[in-house]
């Protein structure tokens, strides 16, 4: 049975696109057939993070409007043969995305893939509500920071009321993914702790992605962080999160950077 998973947050810049790419690639590496769908119409970026920006011909809106077939718009990843991308449009006409049109595409994708990952735009407007509309599961990306936690709470409320599942009286399975976490700062009481966030949001934890330079390095070269440097701390954290999505029980821990000897001696971060 195909699963539709929305990666959402309310707040912008918390790591939705990075997480969609990393989780999508991670699931594909486990042998699942995966499509990552960019819902950020007008501001598409998933293609860039996936390194497929030069291969986009047709997009989500073209398929909704019947200009292109789904098979024409899907872009197969060059590194993983069971990973696909459905890009968003760069045109600014957000109204081109209709509830009915999105429903049709999601139903079609369900017949072709094991996982459909929807990368939500920021905000709580139409784009974000359509991205979550047909979801079975949701990953709420949250930074350990007050405004991000507040927006996550708002999004959780929407997942419980505005999705097709919620309207049917069912529940969207929700998971919190904490990104940009800095254990040392949390230990010093300078950053909300994992316990604080989970207690406030009352939603189970999918994973803790540590703040890391590897994330920027991966997006610079257009590769999901799980593929770019599998040994890095964020990659290992994303792989743990993927295994939890697949139903495995994995002990929750924050992976740490493996520093080189010189860096350790000089006490500086890996550059």
């Amino acid at each position: 049975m195909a699963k539709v998973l929305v990666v959402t947050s309310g707040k912008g810049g918390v790591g939705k696109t990075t997480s969609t790419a990393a989780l999508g690639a991670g699931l594909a590496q486990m042998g699942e057939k995966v499509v990552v769908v960019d819902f950020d119409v007008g501001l598409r970026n998933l293609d860039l993070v996936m390194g497929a920006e030069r291969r986009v011909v047709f997009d989500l809106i073209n398929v909704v409007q019947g200009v292109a077939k789904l098979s024409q718009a899907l872009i197969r990843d060059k590194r993983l043969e069971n990973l696909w991308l459905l890009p968003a449009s760069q045109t600014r006409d957000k109204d081109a995305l209709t509830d009915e049109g999105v429903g049709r595409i999601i139903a079609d994708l369900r017949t072709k893939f094991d996982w459909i990952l929807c990368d939500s735009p920021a905000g709580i407007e139409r784009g974000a509500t359509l991205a979550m509309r047909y979801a079975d599961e949701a990953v709420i990306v949250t930074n350990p920071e007050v405004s991000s936690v507040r927006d996550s709470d708002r999004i959780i409320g929407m997942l419980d009321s505005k999705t097709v599942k919620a309207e049917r009286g069912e529940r969207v399975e929700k998971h919190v993914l904490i990104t940009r976490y800095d254990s040392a700062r949390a230990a010093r009481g300078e950053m909300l702790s994992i316990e604080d966030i989970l207690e406030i949001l009352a939603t189970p934890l999918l994973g803790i992605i540590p703040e890391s330079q590897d994330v920027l390095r991966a997006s610079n070269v257009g590769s999901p962080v799980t593929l770019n440097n599998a040994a890095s701390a964020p990659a290992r954290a994303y792989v743990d999160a993927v295994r939890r999505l697949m139903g495995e029980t994995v002990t929750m821990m924050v992976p740490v950077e493996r520093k080189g000897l010189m860096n350790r001696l000089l006490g500086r971060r890996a550059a």
Partner: protein
Amino acid sequence: MMNLLRLIGGRTASAPVARERLQILLAHERGLRGQPELLGLLRAEILAVVSRHVVLDPEKVIVRMERGKHVSTLEVDIEVPTASKDRSRRLPHDC
């Protein structure tokens, strides 16, 4: 101990403050969910009632809600034009 930490760290832990502020705010916001336009609705109805008796500038009606841990207050600030100005702008049914 806290003083010692403060001496070493040079500042106090801010995370507990963040946590408390969020808890108070979200408790309130969750209560408002489902009636998202409460303030707008109150403003429109208060405006309708008051303007039945006094001529008002709708721009000068401010409805504000302050949230506290135990008590929340609703503040309604209506600026009523002075009598001289008021006479010339009275509505027909008020005369």
